[in-house]
């Protein structure tokens, strides 16, 4: 049974990679030709289903939720990105959003397959510090927050490209929704992500206090989460009070996601600390 689950998980990851790539490619074609977006959406749904299967198989093998190391976090993160993408496209009738968001889970899964050492993907014993219910709250809120910010990053990119085309900087026409729609949707999704990011930091502080007796220790992961939070807080303030919309807001949304990528990859691989789990 264990071997069967391991095979399911492994093959699911490869299937996800292929389908996410196909979905991304079809989205790109659809952005130029203004058709095929529905097919891309269906492919994305299939890919997300495969992502779900991989997570379930991992859960059954490990006898716990797959939230304890970098590999598990990346798979869960991709799942959340695609879930929020699918919901956003369905709810707000945005056909081309996937063209700008799907590269992210595709690249993350590629990284897992091509660059992650087998020892990092193996199921390992959880250290005592991770044996807490707060792990579940903390990491689930993180994947939802980061997933939302990935989608807002895509919307920011779409806005920039839309305005560059309208300003004749970009010669290639992409069938993108009106700029105001992109701007407002980005704002809504950032509100969602920001609320969850606040919960990430609060639950992390509570957990750290139970585990290590201190709710904040300026650990690199904590610090960069705070930096990310401040960037998005700055975005919301600037938008509400200084009427920052459009390009400036789009660039801030992009900068915020860059901070998230550094929070995960930069901190994990360049700045190890107390938080060196995922």
């Amino acid at each position, binding site marked *: 049974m264990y071997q069967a689950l391991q095979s399911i998980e492994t093959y699911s990851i490869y299937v996800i990679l292929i389908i996410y790539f196909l979905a991304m490619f079809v989205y790109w074609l659809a952005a130029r030709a203004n058709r095929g977006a529905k097919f891309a959406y269906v492919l994305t749904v299939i890919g997300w289903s495969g992502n779900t299967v991989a997570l379930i198989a991992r859960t059954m093998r490990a006898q716990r939720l797959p939230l304890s190391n970098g590999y598990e976090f990346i798979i869960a993160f991709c799942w959340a990105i695609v879930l929020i993408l699918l919901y956003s496209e369905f709810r707000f009738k945005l056909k081309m959003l996937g063209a700008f968001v799907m590269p992210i889970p595709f690249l993350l899964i590629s990284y897992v397959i091509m660059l992650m050492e087998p020892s990092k993907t193996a199921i390992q*014993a*959880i*250290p*005592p*510090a991770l*044996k*807490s219910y707060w792990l579940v709250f903390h990491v689930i809120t993180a994947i939802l927050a980061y997933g939302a910010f990935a989608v807002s990053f895509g919307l920011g990119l779409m806005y920039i490209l839309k305005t560059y085309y309208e300003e004749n900087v970009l010669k290639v026409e992409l069938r993108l929704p009106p700029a105001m729609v992109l701007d*407002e949707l980005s704002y*809504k999704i950032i*509100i969602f992500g*920001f*609320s969850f990011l*606040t*919960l990430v930091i*609060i639950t992390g*502080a*509570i*957990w750290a*206090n*139970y*585990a*290590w*007796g*201190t*709710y*904040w220790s*300026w650990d*690199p992961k904590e*610090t*960069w989460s*705070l*930096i990310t939070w*401040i*960037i998005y*807080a*700055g975005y919301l*303030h*600037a*938008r*509400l*009070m*200084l009427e920052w919309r459009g390009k400036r807001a789009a660039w801030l949304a992009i900068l915020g996601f860059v901070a998230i990528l550094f929070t995960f990859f930069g*901190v994990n691989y360049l*700045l190890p600390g107390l938080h060196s789990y995922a």
Partner: protein
Amino acid sequence: MNSWKKKVWLFFASMKTGLFLLGLIVLVSAAGTLFSANIYGSLLFKIVFGLLAINLGVCSINRFNIAYRCTFYPSIPRNIHAVPPKMRAIIPGKSSDLRMQLGKVLNARGYSMISMETNDGWAFAALKHRWGYWGTFIVHIAFIMIIVGIVMGNFGFYGKLIAWQGEVVSFNKINFNKGSVGKNYSIKINSIEDRFMPNGERDNWYTNISIIRADKELARGTLSVNHPFKYDGIYYYQSSYMDYARITIATEGETFEDIVPLGLISDQEKAATSMQHRFEQEIGNSKIYIKGLKLQNQPYAYMQVYNRKGEKKPTMIKLSEGQTGTIFDQTRITMSELTNSTGLEIKADPGVSVVWLGSGLLFAGLILSFYRRPLLVSGVFTGKEEEGTLLLGMSTGRMQRYNKTDFDHIIKFLKQL
């Protein structure tokens, strides 16, 4: 207010000041992760946070009056020019019918309506999600609370204790990294355990401690990682664990005793490779160095013994408690005991509750700000006798499309008359 006081007030009330301070915190925080963490304890960094707290406080004071007025005294337009301009609609009809239906549709959509008579008709204002006006105020106050809680934490204390099983340590002998406190009791380490599950995975480290005064036990409890023990407002956290071997080396007519820390392996086949990562320890002044490993759930240890001069090849030896082995032909090594130590962190932080309260308020304030945005519909009816025109408008706020949906529904209902 004097002009300079007013200038200072306006400076701290400014959004740009707040954004500048936040930007500064971002840059300094990032620099701390890349260069030196000492920056976080620096006076300059604390001053920036202090300025941010002042900025938040001033903004909150300014915002309080506005939030109070908007919540309890929504303004009714006196004339058509005062009706919100960006989203408007004109509905002709009978005064009594329109007034009744307006009240009905606004009530059905969750608005609270107030109205008053004017010279040539009547005017109204209707408010929904009124408590949303307090969202931003609550967020700012919450942030100030968190900063206050952090400052209060400076009046607490924090220390570390590493102790053996059976050891009794006076509280006043604990090594405090921050603050200090005098207590007339001691901590006794009753038991220390590195517990494993049936599948071989580590469960947790458990330490059972007693708080004793003059041989009387005041409290007793077990702590583990993520499960601290609390007594007298002080928390005891399980932070580390280490296995040790007490060994004696007899060589060239001399005897040396010491304690060697042991790493942990789950499989004896890993002993050789794992030993490479262990640090070596000199035993007394013997010029003999040892690295040690313990096999999980087994009562023996592996030791790699070096002669520092390099005259003799390093030797790996496996010993159980009380066993003696011979190395380097004439050197005898005895492991008298396998023991362990527990590492505890002892802490009291008077600001923690304030930080948690601030955190809860912060999240609540965000939910109010984002998801319970106030919606204000207001208008005036003007006309001769019963017939006339209702001009109504909605404050657009920052979510124009969302507000428009609500407004359109109200207009559609009224136009059905």
